[in-house]
């Protein structure tokens, strides 16, 4: 089995194309992390501050000038640029074509307006208004103080891994089909038993997925760390705040980490989420592997993978649509978090939005392993006969 594993691993990862794609991946990630420096070097237009003309009467009233600069604006006296004027209570803005800049200007004007009002009014009135608008409630048992930014970033991380791993569900299947079409199956099966061959394919499939996760996180981590060491990602975050509609007040990676406020508990949640994704991918790999043993041509192989990709896309969109505390704690969300394959995204999302009991996590994992055992018992004979047909 060791030979089969080594052989498959070598063929999958130590070939020219994979190495070439890995280099491409490193280049893309490097460009991502050093985008501000590259755009500065290339003197790209969006790297320059956006010139903005604000009527002198209005500008006098600006009390958040620094924030305008932080968001990428530069005050000018040239009226050919974006201009902002105010007649009575209406702001008139010209020459802004894109929605992101419009949103930023609106937010900055609103922020300025609120701060002015706050400073000019009687503070006790504001205090009264705040007290009138809100009540302090502390749900001791179920409440988890939500950090939307953190939540979104973790979901982004997990779904990225989910999609990255989708590539790998078909690798085992392709390998079996390649062995069949090159007529190597009879030769291999005179050297190892069908069961050894089957198990080695599952193990190598799982190892490949792990390897892919580790190597990708490794590359991201290394390049990200190098950027952090350079200038704590300052220019990059500024560029992101400037170009993207982020409502965060971060200017370097330190600020982003502070905002994320990652704890050990978050680490556990991400880890458990990864375990669920891995188990789900593992189940799909087994199913595709077994079906592949029945395939005789490359054309048939492509038709096997299609429905699985569709199911995985459905799971993704379902998980996104259920991605609120209310939906995930509802009947559908709860039930799906126990259903194998569906649980690979629904359970991690439940973990992020609500308190999930360890017994629930264990039960969901148990269901998945029960399904794996069932597949082994019921479908292994199909795999065996599929390979023997070829033999």
């Amino acid at each position, binding site marked *: 089995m060791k*030979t*089969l594993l080594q*052989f498959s691993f070598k063929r999958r990862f130590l070939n020219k194309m994979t190495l070439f794609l890995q280099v491409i991946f490193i280049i893309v990630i490097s460009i991502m992390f050093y985008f501000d420096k590259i755009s500065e070097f290339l003197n790209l237009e969006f790297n320059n501050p956006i010139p903005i003309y604000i009527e002198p009467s209005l500008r006098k009233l600006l009390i958040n000038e620094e924030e305008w600069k932080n968001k990428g604006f530069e005050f000018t006296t040239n009226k050919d640029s974006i201009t902002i004027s105010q007649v009575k209570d209406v702001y008139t803005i010209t020459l802004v074509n894109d929605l992101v800049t419009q949103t930023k200007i609106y937010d900055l004007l609103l922020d300025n307006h609120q701060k002015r009002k706050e400073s000019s009014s009687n503070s006790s009135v504001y205090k009264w208004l705040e007290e009138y608008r809100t009540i302090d409630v502390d749900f001791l048992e179920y409440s988890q103080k939500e950090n939307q930014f953190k939540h979104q970033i973790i979901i982004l991380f997990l779904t990225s891994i989910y999609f990255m791993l989708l590539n790998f569900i078909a690798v085992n299947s392709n390998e079996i089909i390649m062995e069949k079409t*090159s*007529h*190597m199956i*009879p*030769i*291999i*099966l*005179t*050297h*190892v*038993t069908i069961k050894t061959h089957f198990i080695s394919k599952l193990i190598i499939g799982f190892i490949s997925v792990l390897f892919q996760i580790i190597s990708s996180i490794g590359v991201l981590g290394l390049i990200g760390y190098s950027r952090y060491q350079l200038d704590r990602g300052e220019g990059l975050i500024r560029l992101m705040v400037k170009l993207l509609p982020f409502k965060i007040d971060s200017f370097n990676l330190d600020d982003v980490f502070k905002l994320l406020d990652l704890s050990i508990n978050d680490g556990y949640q991400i880890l458990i989420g990864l375990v669920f994704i891995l188990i789900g991918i593992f189940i799909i790999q087994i199913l595709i592997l077994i079906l592949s043993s029945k395939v005789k041509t490359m054309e048939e192989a492509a038709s096997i993978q299609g429905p699985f990709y569709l199911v995985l896309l459905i799971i993704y969109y379902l998980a996104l649509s259920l991605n609120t505390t209310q939906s995930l704690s509802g009947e559908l969300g709860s039930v799906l978090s126990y259903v194998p394959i569906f649980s690979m995204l629904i359970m991690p999302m439940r973990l992020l939005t609500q308190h999930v009991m360890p017994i629930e996590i264990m039960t969901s994992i148990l269901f998945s392993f029960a399904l794996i055992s069932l597949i082994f018992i019921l479908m292994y004979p199909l795999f065996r006969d599929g390979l*023997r047909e070829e*033999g």
Partner: protein
Amino acid sequence: MLEIQNISKNYGKKKALQSCNLVANKHDIIGILGQNGCGKSTLFKSIMGLIEVDSGNIHYNYELCDFNQRKKFGYMPEQRSLFLDLTLYEQLKFLAQLKGMISNGFENLVDMYIDRFDLKDKKHTILNKLSKGQQQKVQLIAALIHDPDVLVLDEPLNGLDFYSVQLVMNELRIQASKGKIILISSHQMDFMDELCTHLLVLENGQTIKNGKLVELYQDYGVCVSVNADSLWHNISKQHKNILEKGSMIEFHFTNLIDAKKALGNFCKEPTITTLKLHNVSIGDMLKEGE
């Protein structure tokens, strides 16, 4: 000893193999012959455990053949079965590793075989770059590399030139002399004549001939061949079984005594310059069986 007892295999309604029996001892080279689709490959796959037989048993050294027993078998399937993106050396190394014999004199064996099969300069060549005949020889080396006791070779001479066929036949004779059992199928009857010690002839899954080649020869009599440009017409009048084979005329006799008599007469004919006493060829045997 390899013993096949009454094995049968059906593919749906098609009877691929019916009550096939075979006993093979050390040093035997058994030719499995028959037309396309007669059940040769099914028999080989059954021996190698690649298909499950419907009935019957296969024993090796008086024990029921299982996976561990079959580790001592070397198999060469009919189709090209190679990872064409590997080099010759990598392919052999992979298969040897699967058999767990990589540290056991593997390098020497590889060098020996590629030398014997005239592939010495191809050791690190990608298999895709080799000719079909060379790939065929690599497949044969792959079957031999773990020094098996039984060789099951499905059409190993396909696609080989005359020189390569001689190399392969020599190698098989060497292997047989070492006490190995060789089961071989081929449509190249002339070479089978030279190589085999036993024959198993199949037709639609049924055994129609089975036994030692020398015994089968006795059943089919003896032949005398003379050059075709001789004045054979006069002589031939006395004979019924005459075959024209290129530059030779072949006279068939039911027994050796008649053949020797005829040989005496032919010796007197001055126009006969080539004269040969020999057994009936396997090809003719099969034709007679039809």
